[in-house]
């Protein structure tokens, strides 16, 4: 049996693991942790091995065509949707990232969560997440993607709310789920539109038709948009929710309420990038809707800078990373919106490594600090936990765009594409954001690992390097953070940009209007490259200047521009605005609907009818006076009435 034929096992194994652990957790709560680990880490591990084998076979297969595997038909009849998987270059990349990074995070979790109650439950959720994420990326149609899409949303909900006995984490989970659902709503509408037009949701049946008859998608459809535009917009709104873009990014910072490995896996490496994956997957449609593409890019850019600016002032180490994630996702959409799909996926990949690494590192720190997340209480940790420090530093270098590290190549390709397509404004934003990114990351490193230790004595006493189950994943991911960019070294730097070529079959080629491959003068390219490096270096340098000696150098700025500081510190009051403008009014409106309308008017009119009936009856019964003379009179008047009726001409 070929490994490719076992592709279905890749998502099935983690799901089976989840089911197993879940059942044991419910019905045999006293079972030991060893089985939990064995199942919880073992199943994704085997899944990863199967995946790697499948990828290996796919890459070295004689037939380079995408591989499809149909399991069963979800619906039959006029509208048939199969449950089927697809392995093509794009899903290969995603599959690798998800299984590989995912597996190592599982390993890490075995250490990180070892003292937590609900250990087994944690693995059940995490495995379920792996399964759903794999469905999302492996599905050969939008329905399977959506199944995974919502599945990861569910797991995100469960894992954010993992500490369900506190009040904030479940709320954060709920927020994540609902905000995601808003996006899903649009995603669904987009799917309906596609299905109504093409009668199918399978990629291989839609995109070729799109490519062969693009004109059909350009006719006006709705909302002043073409069909392609409408679908693209819908999908992008879906992506906004999942990938935390303006205006739906608000859930991601709150999502840090979950355990740190969860943040690493879900809210950095994999789930949040699903939106990017979807946009790239649907690139055929996006290419036909350039106006939506620009919109995507603008949203991405603004998200990037907005999140980065908030990240500048965060003191919670995970919050810094969370805003950083939002910001980096903005980069990816910037690229995807401008048609640089491979660049987006490239950054997605590198980001998965270095951001997972950073999160795991921060987890290691938090683990050592006994749950403390405030960087103001840390400092000088490099002495106590060198592996963590060094790997974290490598991750920082990667995200800050230090040349040679992974982030450098991917971010540079995005900026390059931005400039090349002539979007200089967006380029400027991207560049500035790169500087900010470098600044806040180095700030975090400095506050955490340099200077003096600012925590309590007791904490200091407990500081220790993490056990090997946690540090090995750090090391593995650090290797990735350093080297994953090397698959896409641009031609300018002598690389073959092999990643771009690998992915190109996924990018739809329209015969009439092929994507203009931006050509720039080499000198300009160099200039841009240097600019981005400089921006990064400035950020790094300035951060070290302010925070390097373990002082809160940023306070100077906060004092100088209190208003700006306040705006950033309160995250532009976006949560508050949503609360005031949407949630509260909607709540009041609903209460009005219930008490003021449903009870009073709808049900009230029913009761009023009953009241009128009853009252008229109460009045009417007075006619039966008990006096027989009155009865006789009624009779007589009745007779006269009959007479009148008969005699009336």
């Amino acid at each position, binding site marked *: 049996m070929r490994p490719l034929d076992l592709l279905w096992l890749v998502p099935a194994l983690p799901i089976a693991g989840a089911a197993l652990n879940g059942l044991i957790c419910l019905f045999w709560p006293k079972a030991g942790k060893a089985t939990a680990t064995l199942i919880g880490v073992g199943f994704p591990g085997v899944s990863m091995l199967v995946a790697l084998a499948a990828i290996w076979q796919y890459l070295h297969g004689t037939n380079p065509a995408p591989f499809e595997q149909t399991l069963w038909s979800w619906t039959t009849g006029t509208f048939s949707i199969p449950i089927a998987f697809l392995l093509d270059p794009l899903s290969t990349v995603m599959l690798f990232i998800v299984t590989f990074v995912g597996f190592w995070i599982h390993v890490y979790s075995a250490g990180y969560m070892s003292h937590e109650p609900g250990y087994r439950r944690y693995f059940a959720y995490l495995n379920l997440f792996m399964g759903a994420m794999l469905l999302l990326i492996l599905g050969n149609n939008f329905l399977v993607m959506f199944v995974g899409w919502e599945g990861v949303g569910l797991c995100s909900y469960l894992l954010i709310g993992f500490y369900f006995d506190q009040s904030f984490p479940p709320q954060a989970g709920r927020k994540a789920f609902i905000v995601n659902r808003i996006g899903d709503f649009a995603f669904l509408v987009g799917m309906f539109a596609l299905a109504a037009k093409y009668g199918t949701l399978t990629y291989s049946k839609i995109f070729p038709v799109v490519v062969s008859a693009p004109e059909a998608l350009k006719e006006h459809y709705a909302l002043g948009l073409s069909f392609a535009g409408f679908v693209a917009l819908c999908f992008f709104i879906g992506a906004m929710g999942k990938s935390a873009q303006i205006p739906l990014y608000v859930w991601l910072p709150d999502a840090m309420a979950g355990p740190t490995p969860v943040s690493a896996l879900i809210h950095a490496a994999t789930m949040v990038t699903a939106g990017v994956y979807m946009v790239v997957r649907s690139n055929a449609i996006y290419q036909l809707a350039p106006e939506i593409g620009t919109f995507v890019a603008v949203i991405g850019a603004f998200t990037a800078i907005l999140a980065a600016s908030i990240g500048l002032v965060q003191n919670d180490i995970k919050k810094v990373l969370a805003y950083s994630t939002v910001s980096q996702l903005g980069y990816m959409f910037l690229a995807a919106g401008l048609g640089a799909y491979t660049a987006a996926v490239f950054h997605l990949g590198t980001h998965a490594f270095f951001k997972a690494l950073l999160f795991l590192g921060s987890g290691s720190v938090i683990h050592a600090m006994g749950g403390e997340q405030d960087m103001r209480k840390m400092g000088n940790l490099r002495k106590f936990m060198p592996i963590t420090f060094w790997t974290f530093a490598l991750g920082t270098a990667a995200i800050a765009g230090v040349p040679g590290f992974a982030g450098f190549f991917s971010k540079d390709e995005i900026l390059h594409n931005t400039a090349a397509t002539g979007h200089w404004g967006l380029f400027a934003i991207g560049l500035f954001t790169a500087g900010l990114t470098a600044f806040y990351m180095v700030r975090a490193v400095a506050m955490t690992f340099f200077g003096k230790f600012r925590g309590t004595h007791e904490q200091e006493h407990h500081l220790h390097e993490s056990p090997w189950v946690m540090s090995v994943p750090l090391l593995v991911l650090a290797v990735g953070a350093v080297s994953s960019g090397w698959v896409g070294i641009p031609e300018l730097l002598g690389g073959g940009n092999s990643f771009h070529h690998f992915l190109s079959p996924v990018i739809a080629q329209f015969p009439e209007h092929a994507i203009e491959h931006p050509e720039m003068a080499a000198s300009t390219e160099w200039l841009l490259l240097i600019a981005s490096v400089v921006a990064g270096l400035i950020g790094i340098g300035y951060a070290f200047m302010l925070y390097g000696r373990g002082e809160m150098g940023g306070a100077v700025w906060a004092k100088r521009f209190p208003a700006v500081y306040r705006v950033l510190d309160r995250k532009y009051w976006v949560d508050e605005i949503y609360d005031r403008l949407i949630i509260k009014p909607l709540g009041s409106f609903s209460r009005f609907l219930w008490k003021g309308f449903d009870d009073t008017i709808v049900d009230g009119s029913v009761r009023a009818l009953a009241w009128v009936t009853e009252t008229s009856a109460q009045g009417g019964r007075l006619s039966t006076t008990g006096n027989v003379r009155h009865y006789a009179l009624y009779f007589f008047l009745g007779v006269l009435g*009959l007479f009148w*009726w008969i005699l009336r001409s």
Partner: protein
Amino acid sequence: MNAHDLASLTPEIILAGGGVLLLLLEALLPSLRRAFTGIALVVVAAAVWGFQSVPSGASNLGALDWNGPVRAFAFAVLLSTGICLLASQGYLRREKILSGEYHALLLWSACGALLLLRATELLTIFLALELLSICLYALAAYHRRIAIGTEAAIKYFLMGAFVSAFVLLGIALLYGETGSTRLDQIGAAFALSEKFPIIPSLGLALVLAGFAFKMSLVPFHAWSPDTYQGAPSPFVAFLSVAPKVASAMVFIRLLQVAVANPEMIGRWSGIVAFLSVASMIVGNLLALVQRDIKRMLAYSGIAHMGYLLLALVVPGANSIGPVAVYLLSYVLMTSGAFAVVTLLYARAGEQHQISELSGLGFRYPLLGGCLAIFMLSLGGIPPTFGFFGKYVVFMNAVTDGRWGLAIVGVLASLVGVFYYLRIVYTLYMKPESRLAAETSSGLLIDGWGRAAAILAAVGILAFGVWPTRLLEWVLGSPWAP
């Protein structure tokens, strides 16, 4: 009077003779009192058996009539008599007023009702009406210890006598203007009349009003709640149905006469429609607010007569069947309901508050269940006979193109459902009241009474699921007015 005529009178003779027999027994063998119910039942059964020997068609010089629907009506009357007798035994014993006069009067009134519904001649109609009425006045006052009983009787009597005078005047006008007292001849005169026959129509209206009074149609209805409330409960099982059944037949006969002249169909339809709608609305509305179950049933009876008239708005050969079916169902459920009321209320002279039934459904499962069935049937909810009764009259209204009336009917019956349900929920959903627990000791629930309830309930359910034969028989019977 020949053998034919005599044979035609078999049921009446049996009933009247039975009454005399009971009277004699009361005088001669009062120790047999406990057996009177049985004897009377045998008499009633014999009268039903006597139906066979009644030759079809007219008899007694065209004064009486007999055919399928009439037979159904007569059966309905005797059915209610039977149920009334069954329910009476326990009551009379409990109240210590058991005597043969009661049974005799009841049989005579049944005889009167039978004559009334068979009569096709005005003089016979009047006399049968009086025979029936006088028995009813006496029976209403039968429990003389209770103040409301005599009050009920006096109200009924005064109203009845007052109305009799109108009927008589109407008869005089009809007779005088058409020269005959036989309905068929009057109808022929109507049909021949080239002009609009005004004075006979007024006479007809007077007679019709009289029978509308007996049927307690609005606005001639006001006596019935008071009378039902005061009269002995088991007797109301008869009072609330038998006179209505008999009067309904007369009503139909009169309508047949009235519409003999095509010019008048519209007017009489209007009258019947008005009576129907008024009865449905007023009956249901006022029943809604009653606290006394007997008054409630009285108003419900008013409403039911309203439904009944739906089939008569366009009187024709096909109206009689639905009316007969409806009346049979009405007999079963109303008589049955009063039978249960008799058994479940201990204090004859007081109000029969609905609330006293609280929780009794579980204390007396059989009677409670029967009462619930009667209520659901009265509400017209399948699978009960009451539903079929409603169905056939509504169907008739729709067939006549009067679906506006049918809609009024269903809406009115919706109000009806509310108060019938009140009984059901009082029986089953309210906690048993202390009062009920105390007074239940005064109850006398005998086998006869149970039999009455079971008979009616089984009939309702049986005809509710299998009305086939009955409908075929009643609807398929030939009918000549």
